[in-house]
């Protein structure tokens, strides 16, 4: 029984932690792309990388102030959306999926390589110390919470983690509010009509390409924000932290919660991280598996979960089956 409670407590701790915030933001971005507009973007991690690199490089290497760095992260994500979207948004959904995943991998390989190490730190990335102040310094200095450990019942935080968690969940709430108000506006109705029938939207005189581009930029900026939260929490930026799997996990979270719903991505990533933690800790703490094998097992289970969800409940926990009649 004690073991069971310990597993539950530490899993809840993980589920509301910074990782869940990162995935909630990234999946909200994907929700705008895939859930509302029908764009099958499999390169969300590329937007996260651009946001993170924009922040880390501008602050650590070029020594701009922190808030300008945040702006640089957002602009980097916008830039990627423009460059990636201009040629690929006209492609059919499956071609879009392949080209976005390829673009994200190009970004990762390039920023990992030694040839750009002067800016990206190459394979070692940018730890917070490089270039004097470091990009997390202002962030940590803004932390109003006195150093120490805090516990609320089961939940335990260090002051840095608590700071990320508070700001992060406020951010997630603001994003939900933004998406909610956008999707009940005329703009939201147009992008959803594009998802349902692109040609019909075009026949009604809507500039489909422009709407798709706006959706790509919006979702991409949310992805970039997720990347920034990730590097601020980690305290360092390195390109190999942005593998294609991140996109796939974000999709799993989105589909689990329910695409084309406001809270779907948030609930999805909470559930995703809770399930990941529960399975791993149950398998290792009860001694079913050696401690090293937990990681791969839980990810295999994530894959299985994605398959089962897609087969039996493609609309997810919160979704409405009539809303999700997607087919490219």
């Amino acid at each position: 029984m004690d073991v069971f409670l310990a597993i539950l407590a530490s899993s809840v701790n993980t589920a509301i932690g910074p990782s869940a915030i990162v995935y909630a933001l990234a999946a909200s971005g994907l929700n705008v792309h895939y859930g509302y507009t029908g764009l099958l973007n499999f390169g969300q991690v590329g937007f996260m990388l651009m946001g993170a690199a924009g922040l880390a490089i501008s602050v650590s290497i070029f020594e701009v102030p922190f808030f300008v760095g945040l702006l640089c992260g957002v602009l980097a994500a916008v830039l990627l959306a423009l460059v990636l979207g201009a040629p690929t948004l006209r492609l059919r959904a499956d071609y879009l999926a392949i080209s976005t995943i390829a673009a994200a991998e190009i970004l990762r390989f390039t920023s990992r390589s030694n040839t750009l190490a002067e800016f990206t730190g190459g394979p070692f990335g940018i730890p917070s110390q490089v270039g004097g102040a470091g990009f997390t310094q202002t962030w940590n200095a803004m932390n109003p919470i006195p150093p120490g450990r805090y516990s609320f019942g089961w939940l335990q935080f260090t002051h840095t983690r608590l700071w990320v968690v508070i700001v992060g969940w406020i951010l997630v709430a603001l994003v939900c509010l933004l998406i909610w108000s956008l999707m009940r506006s005329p703009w939201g109705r147009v992008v959803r009509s594009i998802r349902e029938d692109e040609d019909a939207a075009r026949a009604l005189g809507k500039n489909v390409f422009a709407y798709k581009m706006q959706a790509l930029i919006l979702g991409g900026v949310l992805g970039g924000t997720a990347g920034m939260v990730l590097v601020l929490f980690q305290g360092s930026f390195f390109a190999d932290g942005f593998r294609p799997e991140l996109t796939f996990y974000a999709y799993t979270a989105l589909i689990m919660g329910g695409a084309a719903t406001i809270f779907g991505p948030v609930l999805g990533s909470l559930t995703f991280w809770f399930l990941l933690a529960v399975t791993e800790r149950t398998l290792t703490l009860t001694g079913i598996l050696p401690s090293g094998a937990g990681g791969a097992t839980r990810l295999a289970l994530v894959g299985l979960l994605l398959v089962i969800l897609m087969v039996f409940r493609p609309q997810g926990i919160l979704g409405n089956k009539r809303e999700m009649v997607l087919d490219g």
Partner: protein
Amino acid sequence: MVVGARRGCVLALRRIAVTALLAVLLVPTLLVAPVLATDVEVVAQEDTDEADDAGDEEDAGGEEFRGTLVTGDDEPIPGVIITVETLDGEVVGQVESDEDGSWSQPVPEPGDYVVTLQADTLPEGVELRDPERASLETNVRTGQERTLLFPFGEAAEVTPFSERLISQTFNGLKFGVIIAIAAIGLSLIFGTTGLVNFSHGELVTTGAVIAWFLNAPAGVGAGIQLIGAGAIAVVISAAIGGAIDRGLWQPLRKRRTGLIQMLVITIGMMLVLRNVNQLVFGSSSRPYFDYTIQDAFVIGPLRVTPRDLIVLLLALIVLVLVATMLQRTRIGKAMRAVSDNRDLAESSGINVTRVILVIWILGTGLAGFGGILNGLVENVSFIMGFRLLLLMFAGVILGGLGTAYGAMFGSIVVGLVTELSTLFFSTELKLVWALFVLIIILLVRPQGLLGRAERIG
């Protein structure tokens, strides 16, 4: 009229977009050229890995610069003075190289430093390869022991360009046919069912991993010689493919599941297969137990191992066999017919369900075979399939998605692009060029080089 104007507008937009993309992607490569020259300075980056892992915050202190001075003939150079200064010119320390030529100089804190080798303290007859690089501006991170290299003597003899061209062409061809073999299934499955199978790369890995366990000596595996092990692994792979089609895709097609939904399902399958492979095989990359060490023989300017030559020949033979089968046999013709127009094929009496099953069996078997060849040339690892997957997509789209010949042709081009790019650009970026080709093709000729024009936008 209106349509014409719209088309013109679209073309113009596309042109602008291509230019923008090219500009964005080329600027970094132009920056790369000068940076490449300074790259040599760090040789032993592996050393620093552990220091990094130790944790950045607790482990303050212990930063230093170090290195070993040796001549071009590997003779140590003792008694050379090296100074370390901050960027403001404040001297941090001075050190003399010892009898082994090695030196190390601790620094008080992480940051940027200038490390200078006092050229006048060098013994007679020893000179820096590049006298201007006696001073290196570099940085050290928390807990890092940074190794610096000062090269002496003449630069090592450079292989002539023509020889590198020939050997890289050979490598590219070899890599290309391996991708081609693995990609045939991906392309045929798309052609017949419209499914973009993201788990195809993991089927490649699975074939290689099965062969590894059959090949591994008793205790770990079955200890079968690699040829036998490979043959059995290909059969098992093919059976797995058949089972996946029967057990998963066939019921889903009957339920008329949407293609996008099926695409997301392949992502789930990919995660399952990859992590099961990792659980079973482990995270390290390991070679097969046969044909690992071989003497290369020399054909003109080309040095090849018998293994690589046989891999290339075997792959070419299999490609020709598959092409002959598609061209001549009844089932091959049926495959092409279903791929071309499913409804028409069905109405002319072809059993489409059976053809698709055969394609899954054939495609997965070939994917497993491609995995074994790739494992033979490089190493077996759980991530190898995913690495190949994007290259397979590149090859398949380059040739024309859905056609078998297009997949073969496109994959060989991708293999050549990958390896030949190393003649001009950094090896680290070789995969980038292949993916770059993929995006360019999607922009200018989305139906592929051999594909028939149709609307895919």
